[in-house]
């Protein structure tokens, strides 16, 4: 197997320009931008809070979709052939905030410090927080965030997570709320580990973001699919999840996303017993700022201009931290075009 060739635009390292760029976040956007920038002769340092570069591609997306080696070898090639320096286990932050995967960082660096030390900074910190649902009982034991669950499973395989951290899923009943790609990935992994998986979705399979193909694959493997239901509360026993109370829904008029809005039907409550529950209802951008220094929108995403630059001159941003949850390819696209902007800006053309 060969690694992803992030530096696909050139064969070898060109004459150095003497400019130094810091990239915060070694996911698809950051690594692709690094690949472009090294091909233009800039020196690149990459900071990431996780123990090795790769981001969600490496630590969260299941192996059957993106092989571990494919990402590892790609990141290694940047280091060996193009002298990219990685600073793993380093969280870059201005202010503070708790995100998923925080247990791995050992050092913190301030973003403003990087801005002073480097000619340009690119932020590609992605979406390392999970949207909370806000219903009674959503903080009980046995409720996992999809990121941590997927991360424990894959991280254990990679040797970063001890066995006892991975929940024993065999013959356990796992409920998953949501029908996006994350929900489907959680379902695949839990099913593989022997759990009885049930997916609950408030619309129908036709509206499910993951699509009928993926969901039907899961159904053929024994995963139960419940549609037109929405969670009302989580029922616990001794502080642990025991069941979920759901409401049936019907579809009303289309909402701003163009999909028909689910309307809960009053009095239709029913309960499903569960051992574990996962709310996979969306992820939230995690910029290296919290409220100050860089401008963010009301969903916490970094705001950039036509040059992909934030409100601080010389600090650029790309990927999911700007766009919210998208696909790997969209993050790569944003990383690539942002790198073009950075290169032009460093040359004084922008």
């Amino acid at each position: 197997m060969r690694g992803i060739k992030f530096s696909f635009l050139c064969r070898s390292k060109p004459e150095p320009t003497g400019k130094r760029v810091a990239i915060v976040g070694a996911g698809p956007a950051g690594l692709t931008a690094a690949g472009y920038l090294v091909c233009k002769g800039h020196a690149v340092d990459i900071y990431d809070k996780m123990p090795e570069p790769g981001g969600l591609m490496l630590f969260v997306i299941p192996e059957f979709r993106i092989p571990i080696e494919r990402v590892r070898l790609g990141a290694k090639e940047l280091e060996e052939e193009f002298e990219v320096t990685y600073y793993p286990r380093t969280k870059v932050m201005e202010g503070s905030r708790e995100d998923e995967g925080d247990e791995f960082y050992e050092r913190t660096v301030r973003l403003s410090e990087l801005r002073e030390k480097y000619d340009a900074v690119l932020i590609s910190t992605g979406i390392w927080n999970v949207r909370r649902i806000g219903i009674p009982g959503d903080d009980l034991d046995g409720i996992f965030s999809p990121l941590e669950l997927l991360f424990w499973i894959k991280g254990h395989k990679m040797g970063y997570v001890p066995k006892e951290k991975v929940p024993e899923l065999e013959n356990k009943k796992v409920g998953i709320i949501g029908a996006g790609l994350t929900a489907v990935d959680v379902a695949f992994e839990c099913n593989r580990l022997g759990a009885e998986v049930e997916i609950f979705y408030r619309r129908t399979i036709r509206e499910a973001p993951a699509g009928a193909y993926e969901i039907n694959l899961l159904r053929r493997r024994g995963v139960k699919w419940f549609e037109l239901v929405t969670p009302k509360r989580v029922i616990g026993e001794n502080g642990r999840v025991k069941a979920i109370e759901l409401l049936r829904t019907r579809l009303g008029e289309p909402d701003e996303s163009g999909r028909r809005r689910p309307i809960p039907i009053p009095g239709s409550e029913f309960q499903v017993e569960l051992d574990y529950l996962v709310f996979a209802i969306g992820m939230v951008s995690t910029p290296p700022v919290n409220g100050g220094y860089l401008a963010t929108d009301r969903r916490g995403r970094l705001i950039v201009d036509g040059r992909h630059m934030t409100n601080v001159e010389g600090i650029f941003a790309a990927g999911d931290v700007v766009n919210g949850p998208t696909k790997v390819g969209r993050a790569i696209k944003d990383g690539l075009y942002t790198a073009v902007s950075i290169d032009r800006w460093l040359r004084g053309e922008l």
Partner: protein
Amino acid sequence: MEREYLYLDYLTCIGCETCETVCGFIHDGNPYIRIYVTENKQYLPINCKHCDDAPCLRVCPTHAIYRDEEGAVRIAENKCIGCLVCLQVCPYGVPFYSLKVRAITKCDMCAERREEGLEPACSLMCPAEAIQYGPLEIVLELVRERRAKNIPEHQKEVTEEELAKSVSSGYIFL
């Protein structure tokens, strides 16, 4: 020169759009590989398969379509009269007429990059390793090795013959 193959394994593709992105990036925003999505959300990137027995090559009245040394089906833009017959016979609807170039354009297996000793960009960047490039035996081996990592439904044992047919004729093997 040895015949090179560019093979897209639909059982491994995750529909992430990376191929379309990088192809568009090196072709001024006009990707030669495009992702089509079916009603049930299966993602199918479609590009020229560089078929061994290419109907476009046979039908072109001005012989503007030829096969280069490494096996890529290419267009000689100066010979193309824009009759679109190639588009009509292509099983994948791949060729399209570019008003800018004033000729048919399509995937040329990254001809310019190959001249510089670089491989096709889509294959290099695909995170899932669904696009393999190289001589047939190597492609076959890589597809098998990669498919072994898939979920059981997508592992699907294929014989060498079947895969060879799929790779070299462009017949999509699902």
